[in-house]
């Protein structure tokens, strides 16, 4: 079903974890669709992404695209990170099954959401960045049992 690259990033995810006091955090997706991604960015004053971490609830493709997306933005400038599209993520993974393409979109969105958070926190405007749409807490209430 998945390429070797996807399996590699799924089983050995790069940059998995949290960043305390991150410069920006973005969470996208919702539990209804079965995918939630959270990206933490550590951005230095020059606008370089020094560190990035992710956490993901989702299928193998969701984990792998998160992992790959963090790899692609790490060390980049904010503007460069903005150019990392879902297509680039998919290509870097040697492709995804058609039903899983939305995962790569989610990864792109998660980066954007974290950048948005960073921009808001710092009161700046990032050229070309729009407010992210989806968030888990919008759609469903948390449940426990």
């Amino acid at each position, binding site marked *: 079903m998945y390429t070797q690259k996807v399996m590699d990033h799924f089983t050995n995810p790069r940059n*998995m974890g949290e960043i305390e006091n991150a410069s920006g955090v973005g969470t996208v997706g919702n539990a209804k669709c*079965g995918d939630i991604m959270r990206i933490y960015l550590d951005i230095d004053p020059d606008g370089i992404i020094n560190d990035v971490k992710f956490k993901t*609830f989702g299928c193998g493709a969701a984990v792998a695209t998160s992992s790959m997306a963090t790899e692609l933005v790490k060390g980049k400038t904010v503007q460069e990170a903005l150019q990392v599209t879902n297509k680039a993520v998919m290509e870097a993974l040697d492709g995804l099954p058609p039903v899983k393409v939305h995962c790569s979109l989610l990864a792109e969105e998660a980066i954007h959401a974290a950048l948005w958070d960073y921009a808001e926190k710092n009161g700046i405007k990032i050229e070309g960045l729009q407010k992210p749409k989806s968030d888990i807490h919008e759609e469903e209430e948390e449940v426990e049992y």
Partner: protein
Amino acid sequence: MEKKIYLDNAATTKTRPEVVEAMLPYFTDLFGNPSSVYEYAAQNKKAIDEARAMVAKVIGAGPSEVYFTASGTEADNWAIKATLEAYGDKGNHIITSKIEHHAILHTCEYLAKHGYEVTYVDVDENGILKLDQLEKAIRPTTVLISVMFANNEIGTIQPIKEIGELAKKHNILFHTDAVQAYGQVPIDVKDLNIDMLSASAHKLNGPKGIGLLYIRKGVKIRSFIHGGAQERQRRAGTENVPGIVGFGKAAEIALATMKERAEKETKLRELLMKRVLAEVPFVRVNGDKVRRLPNNINFSFQFIEGESLLIMLDMKNICASSGSACTSGSLDPSHVLLAIGLPHEIAHGSLRLTLSEENTEEEINYTVDQIKEIVDKLRQMSPLYEDFMKKR
């Protein structure tokens, strides 16, 4: 473990070597068309008759009440579509449950687009049909009630006898999709007032590509697949002789070993369940604890998603399933888990393990060990778990 641990027997089962053995002569030696005049084909006809008697016996039916199909799905389609057509004079309403297999649900959706009316009755939190709701749903135009014998995801066994009695009382036909129950638990169609019943050989260590529809004598039913005069003019197409023979053999063995298999599977299942509940936090068991298929267990692990769990189990040589196999590839969580009231995020984190008599205690213990480790790993990765722990 080096060896594959197969815990997905609700999806399909290994064809028993004895079954393959029984089928083999009908490929290259006794390959004749059973409808032919010559003696050579009469042997095939006899083989079909014997298999028919055997598959009928499993459910206490007469041989002439059983029709071979190519699958459980075909049997379901046939039962529903042809019955509603045959009883069009009476009405256009069918009642079913919210947790049926897609073979029933999608057929009902198809009919709903063609002028029929469908009521989907709720189940309780254990997946048991709400009988009072069922009775209230009955209309003068209700032709058929179709409720599955046992659920393929959560293993819940329905109160079939009560449903049969209700149907009889209101003079409505009763069909049950027994694909998961046939050969696994005792069924007596007469005692249970079942008018029609679907089964599929590959769920009981028979071959794929062969199923059956039981139609009680007296039920008016039309053909679904038209053509030659096979199956007493009810189901056309050259008979799948090896498949039928294989089904017969599998049914024979399933009937003979039913009790001991159930005991063995239940024992292993209880071990699995106890250990997981004791050793993994934030987990629940889906489905009824008592009215349940012997070999089925269904967990929901909070904060994680099923597919990644499956892939990681697969990497440890464990074959399992999340939701039903037929819908994997789809993005919706299981309609069954939603129907028993699970929220989406928890439904997504479900794991179905369905055992066979071939599984061992060692395998089960190994599987629990892997589940513990993988669930923990995935939770470390999960933003939902992070949020939950922080809130505590």
